[in-house]
């Protein structure tokens, strides 16, 4: 039986009066890529924020490596976050720092590595995501696809056990999308870690996912391998996968 790296259990999340999640549970299998699909605004990104403690649930529990992160002191949560990489939807690179400084930041703050060692690691990590000779550029000087890859590099440079990707291929052309999907797979294999990917891009998901979870109206309505999800008899899942306007999903 597959080991779990994280588990979201009976979680409820509300924004003011709006219920975003109600009794949501989800298992994150260790060493696998779990993709979360669902309509825009369904709360997919909120699941990523629950997993690294950026968002506390209004009810329920979130376990990471067996620890309920909803009830630990902030200092312990900060330590835990060092073992979780987060690639943001719009990359969220610090715009006053160069790409090198962005990626070196967690190494400078959390490790005792020397500058030469950091420089070597940043360079090799950037090469690992297919970026070369961009170290001294500012984020504003990079294209969308390059920024996403730089964001990947910053998320994985500390060799985290879990990497969270928020819409890694949204708004990119098919070639870059394919490249980034391949990069996520390669990084997971290289780090021998676990990844959770939030995406709308079904082709990418079919390429990389070990498990797929579909979020709808605040709950996970389908979970399984790509093949299992494709064969799901749930009409909501089928409508979503086919991109059809006709079906039970209200438009």
């Amino acid at each position: 039986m597959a080991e779990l790296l994280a588990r979201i259990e009976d979680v409820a999340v509300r924004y003011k009066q709006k219920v975003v999640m109600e009794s949501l549970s989800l298992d994150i299998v260790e060493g696998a890529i779990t993709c979360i699909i669902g309509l825009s605004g369904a709360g997919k990104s909120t699941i990523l924020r629950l997993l690294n403690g950026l968002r506390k649930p209004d009810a329920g529990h979130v376990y990471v490596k067996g620890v309920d992160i909803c009830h630990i002191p902030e200092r312990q949560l900060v330590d835990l976050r060092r073992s979780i990489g987060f690639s943001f939807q719009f990359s969220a690179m610090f715009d006053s720092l160069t790409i090198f400084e962005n990626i070196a930041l967690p190494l400078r703050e959390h490790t005792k590595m020397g500058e030469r060692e950091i420089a070597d690691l940043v360079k090799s990590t950037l090469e690992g995501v297919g970026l070369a000779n961009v170290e001294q550029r500012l984020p504003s000087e990079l294209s969308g696809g390059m920024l996403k890859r730089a964001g990947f590099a910053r998320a994985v440079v500390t060799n985290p056990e879990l990497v969270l990707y928020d819409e890694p291929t949204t708004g990119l052309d098919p070639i870059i999308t394919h490249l980034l999907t391949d990069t996520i797979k390669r990084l997971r294999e290289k780090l021998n870690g676990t990844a959770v990917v939030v995406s709308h891009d079904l082709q990418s998901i079919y390429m990389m996912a070990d498990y797929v979870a579909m979020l709808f109206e605040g709950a996970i309505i389908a979970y399984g391998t790509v093949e299992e999800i494709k064969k799901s008899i749930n009409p909501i899942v089928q409508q979503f996968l086919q991109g059809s306007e006709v079906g039970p999903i209200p438009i």
Partner: protein
Amino acid sequence: MNMLENVGRETSSFFEYVGGATALLGDSTRFIFTLRIRIKETLDQAYRLGVESTAIVCLTSLFTGFVISLESATQAVQYGAESLIGGGVAFISVRELGPMLSAVVVAGRTGAAIAAEIGSMVVTEQVEALQALGLSPVRMLVVPRLVALMVMMPLLTVFADLVSFLGGMWIANSSAHVPTDTFLTSAKSAVTIIDVLKGLFKALIFAVIIAVIGSYQGLGTRGGAAGVGKSTTGAVVTAIILIFIANFAMSYILFRPAGG
């Protein structure tokens, strides 16, 4: 009923704001006392927030010095008290206008910059990215700005005092023909080093107000570009109001005559 609800909501928001800003100051102080200060970032902020404000602070202080001297000279000449102009200009510059005017100018320029910069980082998820990397936004963003302003604000006030005083001396000499020696002697007798130090203490408190309010507004930014604009305006307005209130309170406490 609606009015009561509104009063309740506003009161609750007020205390939430005060509590939040105080907690932010507390967190920042903890990082400062444990010496977890990012030196390079702090020096960078000292240049951007302090050094780059020097020209505007000096310019406003110069013309304020002109006005104080001109107005007091007009009155003093009527009563034959030209020899008191130097004391008047020095007294008002060092104790009140130097610290407060510099603080108001810096609140407008720097407080807005702090709120806008941190606010932009919030709406572009950069602050969340810091947290996701296991880094404290307070230590990374607020502390360098706070420490930089606490160092630079008293220095700017010294410049403001000097420029205002020299401007006043020039106007007194050119418009009321008050000799420089007379002006200086009058100033020396009116202002002590304790007055100067108390003025600089005021500047230090104003620096804390500007940095904490700017940072707090920035960190509380919600909702894109419009939110950044709202935070920036809020930072400037709130900081200026607090500067005036704090100035009165400190003048009352620091400059109250003994036994008064």
